[in-house]
Structures are given as structure tokens and as C-alpha cells.
């Protein structure tokens, strides 16, 4: 991830921690969320490593991404996009 993006994220987190709504969250929720964040972060990291390996293979083979590789990536993105956009608050 771009270090600049991490800096922006940390800035946003710092602001979030100072907001009254977040200060009212219970200790248990924060502990639970901390655990979830570590897990989600490592899952995202594994997916990024797999993508980086795929790109390195393309570079080594001196080739561009194929239509099939684009299709597969686009299908993943579309599926999660529909799930996110179909969510409605209770």
C-alpha cells in the first residue's frame, strides 16, 4: 500500500478516536474490533501478496494481462460491488 495512503488513514483514525461517538463505545467492542482488524488486515495482505506474485510472473514472462485475467478480476469486483451496494441499514 502507498505510504501516503497509510498516513491519510492514520490521520483519519486519529480524528475518529477523538469523536464523542467513538469515545462512548464500550471497551469490549474495541477489543473485539482490534482482533477483527488484525485478522482482516492479514487477509488483505495475503490477497495483495498473491496479486503481487501474479504481476511479477507477468513481468518475468514479458507479457501483458490477458482478457481472461481481466474478466476474472472484474467478476470478483462486480460481485462484491453488488453485495456492498445492496446492503441496507436495519
Amino acid at each position, binding site marked *: *500500500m*502507498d*505510504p501516503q*495512503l*497509510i498516513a*491519510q*488513514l*492514520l490521520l*483519519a*483514525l*486519529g480524528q*475518529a*478516536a477523538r469523536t464523542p*461517538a*467513538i*469515545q462512548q*463505545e*464500550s*471497551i469490549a*467492542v*474495541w*477489543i*473485539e*474490533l*482490534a*482482533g*477483527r*482488524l*488484525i485478522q*482482516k*488486515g*492479514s*487477509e*488483505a*495482505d495475503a*490477497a*495483495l*501478496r498473491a*496479486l*503481487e506474485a*501474479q*504481476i*511479477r510472473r*507477468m*513481468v518475468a514472462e514479458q507479457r*501483458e*494481462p490477458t*482478457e481472461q485475467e*481481466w474478466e476474472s*478480476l*472484474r467478476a*470478483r*469486483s462486480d460481485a*462484491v*460491488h453488488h*453485495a*456492498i*451496494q445492496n*446492503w441496507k*441499514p436495519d
Partner: protein
Amino acid sequence: MITRQMQCLAILALILALAGCATTSPIRAAETTEQTAFAAYGTFTVYQELAGDIMRDTAVPDRVKLAIQRAEGKAKPIADSLSEAARELLRVRREYQAIMASEDGDGADRAQQRLLEAAEGVSRWITELEPAMADLIRAVGEV
């Protein structure tokens, strides 16, 4: 006071989790415009999937989910435009290579121009995607 310490712990956890991500950069591994486009779209998809997991998490407050939904809804059309532009570049490059192989001088100039324009289009969408992806990551970080 203790709540504040827990907030700090949660933030520290996220920093540590993201520190691993910081050492991984599919975009830096890419060498050509098409590979960079694929790496950028792929990186967006990874964060989209992370956002999707968070949306399914019942412990996450609705206000956070709404922020993620908004950021993802804004970034997705930009990412898709990048994908279309990159695939167009792939087609234009194939045409260019075919024309070069046929040694058509006039056609080669026009094809080269189209190739340059297509590559510029891809670069433009990569630049557009960066802030939209940053917004999505920020929304995910609100957890």
C-alpha cells in the same frame, strides 16, 4: 481513561495489520502501463473485498457501513473505466503490432498515435482511481 487506552490499542492493531500491507505493492512490481492498470484494479478489488467482509460483520455500526457503501459506490465506476481503458489499450496494441508486421507506413503512424492516446487514457484513470481508493480505505479504517 481505560476506554481511551482500548481505542489506542485498536488503532495500534490496525497500524500493525497495515504495516504488513505496506511492504506489499503489486503496483510497484508492475513494469508496463497494462500491468500497472491491472495491479491498480486488483489492489482496488482487494480493498473492496475487505470492505465487503466488514459490511457482513454485525458488530460494525451502520454509520461505518454507510460510509463504506458511499466510498465504494464512488470508486467502482472509476475502477471500471480504468479496466475498460486498459482492455482498449490491449486491443490497440494488437492492431499496432499487426500493422507493424505488415509494414504499412501510413497505417503505422496512425496506429502509433492511437496507441499513445490509449496509453494516456489508462494513465489518466490510474490517477483518478488513487484518491477514490484512498477514500474507500479511509472508510474501511473508520471501523
